[in-house]
């Protein structure tokens, strides 16, 4: 009931008309970012972050989170119409969304995608509303060891849940940690890995890395595939919306299952992308007619979109309550919180009630607004994608440079950003995951300091991580996640091996 009252208070914060304006601006910008190749949720928010420095933190987070919701919606448009996933989490949407568009059912596919995104987000926001205060209250009792345990779990989840080679996940992650360690060590005041240069003393800012890895890297990848997009165009009429809506309630089980998968992977940082794939796979396995998947089955649009949006939304829960972002975009927002002078973590729920509940209330409203906007403006976005890439690409690169420069007003950052762009391109091609790298870069200092604090408390005794049932179970879970690839391999061997794809196909 407390959460409910706080939520009403949050809606009171939204009563400021400027906040509604920021929300609408954010959603529109977000859809634009989601539609354009090379601009995604993470780097889009990173580029726009400097514009929010002069705003109040509440207005700023409302705008930035609205951009995020918009980007989540926008990814579906390009997937369905152009078979180009605007965002990694909408790759699974192309499997059935684009075949539907080719059959002339683009309006149905888009309506289903938007509705599913909306429902996924709504369910996740409800989870956040009631779970976040509980988690925050719980986390108030956390010591450094508990925080390190949760951070350990975060990173081990990447290894256990990732679709890439666990060694590549580990390499990307530790590279992030290593980059985070560059510069002045805050505890001892020593310089680490600066090799006598002044420039490296500041260390590597993750915002620069995000803009380069996701922005420039993505442009280079898109460039490889040539310059032209060919797609279907469509408008959504009220009739087609109604026709689709009548069909959707049949999939209520899919909705619930996908939202559950999404929330789980969003809170433990699997992220939206694995959630969408997993949900698609599950929907197909439980379907009465799995053969239709991949040929334009509407359920194949519903499942990944619900999960992606649920995961994207619930990724904010650990960011707010524990200060541990569940996705790169959440990490960028966390960076924003720090810049606005707010300390993410459980104290936020006590000291910054307006901020937290304003944000949570805005999630309800901005998803409604986003849903209405995308439903009515699909032709507009489709026409933006028809602008030739040779115009869009240089503009996006210019925006990336501006974004990188404005973080610290340093020209060198722009050069570093371009360097990260090349790294992003090569890593993407070799299937090194970028999300763990970014999250390690963000959380590196935090993880290190909670580790060192725990070590100080225990005089260097590792058993502090198993000193009580709470920290012990989190650590054990983390280790289980870390060795999950190995465990899964052995379980398969025990079951007789060879049964790796149960559904056939």
């Amino acid at each position, binding site marked *: 009931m407390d959460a409910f009252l706080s939520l009403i208070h949050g809606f009171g914060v939204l009563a400021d008309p400027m906040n509604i304006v920021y929300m609408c601006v954010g959603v529109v910008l977000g859809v634009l970012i989601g539609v354009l190749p090379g601009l995604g949720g993470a780097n889009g928010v990173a580029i726009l972050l400097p*514009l929010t420095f*002069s705003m109040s933190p509440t207005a700023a987070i409302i705008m930035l989170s609205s951009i995020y919701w918009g980007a989540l919606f926008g990814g579906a448009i390009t997937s369905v119409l152009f078979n180009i996933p605007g965002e990694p989490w909408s790759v*699974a949407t192309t*499997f059935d969304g684009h075949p539907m568009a080719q059959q002339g059912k683009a309006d149905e596919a888009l309506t289903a995608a938007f509705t599913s995104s909306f429902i996924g987000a709504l369910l996740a926001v409800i989870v956040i509303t009631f779970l976040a205060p509980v988690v925050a209250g719980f986390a108030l009792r956390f010591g450094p060891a508990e925080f390190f345990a949760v951070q350990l779990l975060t990173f081990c989840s990447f290894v256990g849940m990732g679709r890439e*080679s666990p*060694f590549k996940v*580990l*390499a990307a992650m*530790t*590279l992030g*940690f*290593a980059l985070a*360690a560059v510069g002045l060590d805050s*505890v*001892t005041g*020593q310089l*680490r*890995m600066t090799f006598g240069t002044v420039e490296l003393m500041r260390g590597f800012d993750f915002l620069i890395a995000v803009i380069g890895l996701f922005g420039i890297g993505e442009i280079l990848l898109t*460039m*490889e595939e*040539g*310059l032209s997009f060919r797609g279907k165009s469509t408008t959504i009429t009220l009739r087609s919306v109604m026709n689709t809506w009548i069909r959707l309630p049949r999939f209520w089980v899919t909705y619930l299952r996908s939202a559950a998968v999404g929330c789980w992977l969003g809170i433990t940082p699997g992220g939206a992308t694995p959630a969408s*794939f997993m949900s698609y*796979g*599950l929907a197909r*396995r439980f379907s009465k007619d*799995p053969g239709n998947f*991949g040929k334009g089955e509407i359920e194949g649009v519903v499942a990944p979109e619900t999960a992606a949006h649920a995961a994207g939304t619930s990724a904010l829960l650990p960011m707010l309550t524990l200060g541990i972002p569940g996705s790169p975009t959440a990490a960028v927002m966390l960076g924003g919180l720090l810049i606005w002078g707010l300390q993410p973590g459980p104290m936020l729920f006590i000291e910054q009630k307006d901020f937290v509940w304003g944000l949570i209330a805005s999630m309800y409203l901005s998803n409604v607004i986003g849903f209405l906007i995308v439903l009515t403006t699909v032709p507009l976005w489709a026409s933006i994608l028809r602008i030739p890439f*040779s*115009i869009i*690409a*240089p*503009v996006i*690169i*210019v925006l990336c*440079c*501006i974004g990188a*420069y*404005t973080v610290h*007003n340093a*020209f060198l950052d*722009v*050069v570093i950003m371009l360097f990260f762009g*090349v790294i992003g*391109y*090569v890593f993407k*091609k*070799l299937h090194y995951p970028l999300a763990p790298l970014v999250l390690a870069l963000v959380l590196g200092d935090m993880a*290190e300091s909670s580790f*060192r604090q725990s070590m*100080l408390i225990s005089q260097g005794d590792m058993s502090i991580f198993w000193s009580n049932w709470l920290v012990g179970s989190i650590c054990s879970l983390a280790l289980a996640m870390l060795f999950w*690839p190995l465990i*899964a*391999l052995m379980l*398969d061997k025990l079951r007789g091996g060879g049964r*790796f*794809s*149960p*559904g056939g*196909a």
Partner: protein
Amino acid sequence: MFMEREQNLVPESLPGDGEKTTPVSDAGLTVTMKTMELVVAGLLMLVAAIVMYDSVRVGAGWAFDGPQAGYFPFFIGLILFAASAVTFGINLFSRTADLSNFVTKPALLLVAKVLAPTVIYLIVMYYVGIYIASALYICFFMMWLGKYSIRKAAPVAIAIPLVLFWLFEIAFLIPLPKGPLEAALGF
């Protein structure tokens, strides 16, 4: 050997999920995936070695007041080294190493065509500021890669920096790098 795991998580092979198999034609061959895997894993091992070396320099042990500055980074470097060594080893010794093309020649050319002007753009930006450099860059990009005439490219190339100038310098009061022209105009 890790393909099994992947299918474990996502039960069935998903349509379109597979790698875009670049057609291996000798004409377009640049380097194989295997070579690139080895190069990247090797570079990461080098980075890891540098991290560990520097961590030992600042002290990776245990001081009287707790862990030294290099304690945490040293182990990070160690894990990075080990993980990359495994990736290196898998690609070196596995018979199923991916011998397909890392990037086709035409694709590499396109990537270089974006990268080279961007590097020049940054150099120009350093001297004349971001607005002029951006105008030149967009114009060049459109004419060179988009094959637009200067009449079509110039308006876009001039309009976008103007909008950016208004947005950053006037609306949000965020200074971006400026050069002699802006100085002459009094900014």
